[in-house]
């Protein structure tokens, strides 16, 4: 309960902080919507050129991938934005501030920064879903539920890879690339990947868990598959919590001058 109160306080403060620069806020949000929309034109042209089917995926199914990925990515950016900066927070010693506060370290760090453009991504994902998908209560529940799951798993992947900074000094570029790969693979029809790539997409770059399988469940619901994918998501999130907690024991801090943005 106390943690949820802190979470909502962070959301409010991050929004206030973003609104300090209204023009930048609006430019980033609408810029992101425009940027994402451009890709839809690309997919329309592609489907017109190659027919209605790419490796078993039609235009509507691909749009589901795009909408859930944009929505989940947006949620992660807005509510768990500091995951992207975790390496920097570790190697500059900024983690000190969170270690001195009486709250669980990981949520406290992750909640305390929001990336403004994420609002644009999340809004875009919702609108795209509404415009391109058949709407039903179950379908909306799957979309929203797996949107949140994508945000959590993407953040967990970022946390795991950025936590390598505790061990190697700086894993920032590697972790950023890993996060981007999850998003990149999530937006392409799963059918085009096979063999070892598909294994990777179920594990170290879990695009299958956060996008392909939810798309499958949206098209045709299967309780066993739902439970299996939720268990896999939970495993990745638990892994992130453990890797980070172990990393903190190796934390060396630092003395760089810093401010909370």
């Amino acid at each position, binding site marked *: 309960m106390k943690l949820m109160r802190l979470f909502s*306080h962070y959301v409010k403060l991050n929004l*206030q902080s973003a609104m*300090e620069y209204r023009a930048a806020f609006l430019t980033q949000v609408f810029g992101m919507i425009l940027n994402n929309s451009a890709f839809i034109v690309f997919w329309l042209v592609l489907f017109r050129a190659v027919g209605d089917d790419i490796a078993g995926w039609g235009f509507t199914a691909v749009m589901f991938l795009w909408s859930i990925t944009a929505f989940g990515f947006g949620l992660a950016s807005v509510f768990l934005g500091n995951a992207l900066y975790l390496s920097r927070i570790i190697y500059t010693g900024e983690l000190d501030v969170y270690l001195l506060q009486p*709250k669980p370290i990981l949520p406290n760090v992750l909640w305390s920064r929001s990336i403004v453009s994420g609002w644009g991504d999340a809004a875009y994902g919702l609108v795209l879903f509404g415009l391109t998908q058949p709407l039903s209560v179950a379908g909306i529940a799957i979309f929203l539920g797996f949107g949140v799951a994508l945000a959590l798993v993407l953040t967990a992947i970022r946390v795991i890879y950025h936590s390598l900074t505790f061990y190697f*000094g700086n894993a920032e570029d590697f972790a950023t690339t890993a996060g981007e790969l999850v998003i990149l693979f999530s937006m392409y029809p799963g059918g085009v990947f096979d063999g070892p790539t598909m294994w990777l997409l179920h594990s170290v770059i879990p695009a299958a868990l956060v996008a392909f399988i939810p798309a499958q469940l949206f098209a045709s619901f299967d309780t066993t598959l739902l439970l299996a994918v939720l268990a896999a998501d939970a495993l990745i999130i638990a892994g992130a919590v453990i890797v980070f907690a172990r990393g903190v024991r190796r934390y060396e*801090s630092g003395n760089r001058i810093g401010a909370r*943005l």
Partner: protein
Amino acid sequence: MEEVIRLHNINKSFRTAVRGTGLRASVRSLVHRETRSIHAVRDLDLSVDRGEVLAFIGPNGAGKSTTIKLITGILFPDSGDITVLGLDPHRRRRELAYRIGTVFGQKSQLWFHLPPLDSFHLLGNVYDVPPATLRQRIEELVEVFEIGDLLDQPVRKLSLGERIRCEMAASLIHHPEILFLDEPTIGLDVVVKSRIRDLIRDMNRRHNVTIFLTSHDVGDIEKLCKRAVVINHGQVVWNDTVKRLKYSLLNRRIIDVKTDGPLTIDQEGVRILKQGEYTAKLEVDLDRAPIEEVVPRLFRNAGIQDINISNIPTEEIISRIYEGSV
């Protein structure tokens, strides 16, 4: 007297990469990386009583910040025991956090783009201070630190002195029993420094808050602390009253002068440390030669072009303690 901080036989070392300079060394280090261990803190023993204002001083890299981070639970020691307010800072970090406060001159807990009042409310939430208590506490702190006019200005628009006052208020939101101040007056002008010192003294006297202060500023130590612990190379090299330290070293000033000819001065308590044709560096023992007597004499004896009076740098205090001249 109740002991609130106790460190026994603390050791902490860091591993760091050893690499030569230049491109070749960088390429070689990709294949074979050598590391060495740096002992930041060695066999450190220290205790602080409730209500004490302790100066914890030492040159850069002596282990001051590492020690504070060990005490506050940020870093894990390699060996030894730490007890703060009866708690192990590493096993019971969160419990301890409710009872200590920190001001790191170099790190801010205020949100840069928002007014301090927003940060105060967030910190109230972080420390689970009930809303009514928080409102009352903010009112008290606003009065004590005289920050009423600053509350609604974004932190980025505050001067350094104003920001430090707000930082100190923020660190006291939850009524901490121990306050760790790491270089709280760094970069401040003389007037603001004096104000900050008054506030620290007031906090200690009114609320019996234990103050653990690190500073390179001799003025902070002289004016605030009763006891000084000097650390160098991770070890305690001096642990005694500031009064004794003052009698030994802090009662001296360094005078740098530029002259239009060679300087001669023969006065008890004044020693020439270094002399060039047009420059000189003097050390003045204030007990034997008050500064108000020495300066006019200098002006009478030599054509002074420029003069600078300063305290003995902390580094020098440490080296003199090491040399055994204290």
